[in-house]
């Protein structure tokens, strides 16, 4: 089933870590397997890399800890070799890390070089984007990664009921649009021409972190935008190119958009003011962060809506 959520403060910032946690926890019944966040802090000069060196449910053999330490050091070493200056690197868990670096080179080369380290998977790279995802409900994940108090401008989130791939971090949403900075997607539904688009995008040089159809959308959109399309144009085009039933939310450093397939088969409820847009698979998630009576609506079939800051 899965549940998706998004919030964008069009003027100013807020504790989006706490807001998204409350929204996602309210939808725990839609997907208790894993929870993920794409959080957007105000942009800075440097970039933030979120990566993991193992999965949450990997077997803990006798060398697990030592191996992680060795691979972490290797990542740090490679960051230096490729020309990045590491300002700070810290671990939220024994296997998931956050690095703040200064780097002006090619992001694809950076991501590929880091992912060459055994077990390394880059979850996100961006000037403001940080993707955090793990097994468990929203309160569990937020507690592990200390997301309460994360101030930012916009965010999306996902609670997952695993149907077509494993219960692990790689199969959890959101997906970063490798190798494009600051683009992420959450999705509720199923793409029926997944393999067609996966092969096509792989021929263009992209790699995929998972077997999850949702990852296609992120890379698809980012490729269109690099080709000159706006987020809104890319999302409109996706309605023709992607088959299946879906509602997805896409975010960039300054925008948040939602697209609904032409069958309107997956739910989404919207609350919108001049300052704030909140959306979720269920209205009760919106009400988790708004304490007064509100008017909401459902987007119609084939509709694309984009809000920018």
């Amino acid at each position: 089933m899965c549940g998706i959520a998004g919030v964008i403060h069009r003027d100013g910032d807020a504790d989006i870590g706490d807001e998204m946690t409350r929204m996602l926890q309210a939808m725990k019944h839609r997907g208790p397997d894993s929870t993920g966040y794409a959080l957007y802090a105000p942009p800075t000069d440097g970039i933030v890399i979120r990566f993991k060196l193992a999965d949450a449910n990997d077997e803990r053999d006798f060398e697990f800890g030592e191996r992680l330490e060795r691979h972490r050091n290797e990542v740090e070493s490679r960051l230096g070799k490729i020309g990045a200056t590491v300002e700070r690197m810290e671990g939220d868990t024994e296997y998931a890390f956050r690095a703040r670096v200064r780097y002006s080179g090619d992001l694809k080369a950076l991501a590929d070089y880091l992912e060459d380290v055994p077990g390394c998977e880059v979850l996100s790279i961006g000037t403001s984007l940080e993707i955090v995802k793990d097994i468990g409900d929203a309160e569990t994940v937020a507690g592990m990664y200390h997301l309460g108090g994360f101030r930012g401008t916009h965010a999306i989130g996902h609670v997952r009921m695993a149907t077509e791939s494993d219960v692990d971090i790689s199969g959890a949403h959101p997906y970063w649009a490798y190798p494009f900075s600051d683009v992420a997607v959450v999705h509720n539904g199923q793409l029926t021409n997944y393999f067609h688009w996966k092969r096509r995008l792989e021929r263009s040089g992209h790699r995929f972190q998972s077997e999850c159809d949702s990852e296609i959308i992120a890379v698809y959109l980012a490729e269109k935008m690099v080709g000159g399309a706006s987020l809104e144009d890319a999302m409109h085009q996706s309605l023709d190119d992607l088959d299946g039933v879906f509602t997805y939310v896409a975010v960039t450093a300054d925008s948040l958009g939602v697209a609904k397939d032409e069958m309107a088969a997956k739910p989404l409820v919207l609350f919108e003011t001049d300052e704030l847009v909140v959306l979720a698979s269920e209205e009760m998630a919106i009400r988790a962060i708004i304490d007064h009576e509100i008017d909401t609506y459902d987007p119609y079939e084939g509709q694309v809506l984009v809000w920018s800051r």
Partner: protein
Amino acid sequence: MAEGSSQRVTYDARGLSEPTVEIPRVSQIDGKSAVFDAGPLTTRQINRELRWLVYERGIHDVTITNPGAKHSLGVAILARCTITFAGSLGYFGCGLIDGPEIHITGRVGWSFGENMMSGVVVIDKNAGSLTGAAFRGGDLVVRGDVGARTGIDQKGGTILVGGNGGMNIGFMMQRGRQIYCGNVGPGLGDSMYDGSIYVAGSVKSLGIDCVETEFTSADQELIDRKFSIYGFGTPPMFRKFGCGKQLWNYDNLEPSERKLVL
């Protein structure tokens, strides 16, 4: 169930179920009317409080404040009574009801009024997709917009919509009436068997086997009456759509004969 007793539920979806739910008994009762705050209550607590009031205390006028868009509220009420939800409901609200008059001051989510058998429901704002799925009787009034597949598999009664409708309105509808004061999306009345759909605004496209049919004085009388009852003002001009009866299921073959042919 006797007052004070509890129900044992063995299924626990990873900590999400409520194995033991007492009737909260938080209502303020004044003669034959009662009001209670649903804000701090769970879905099962709300429904148990409502059923306790209607069935065991004989209260015929219940107001529920702060429903908070929770799911599955007000389902399976099979008594003549008046219920007001002061706020919005989530998914699967007021399904399987038979007899009550329900007023919702907010909005409702997907699959509202599913299998409703009789009574009246008035929703002041919008409704999600699949509103009135398999709707069997009574009046279901939405003053705002409705989502896709409203009245899917409808078997009777009247759905009156003050705003617009989404795609596949009346999909596989079998009987009954739907009235739209605004526009409707693509695939209107797709694969409908029977029944009537009235649209005042634009129709993006007709579904398979849906055709425009003659609008008669009886149709106008029906619309005038419904508009008058629910305070919709002067009716605009409507067009009427129904089933063209050209699909395979309208041929003269019995199912056994069709097997032989195919």
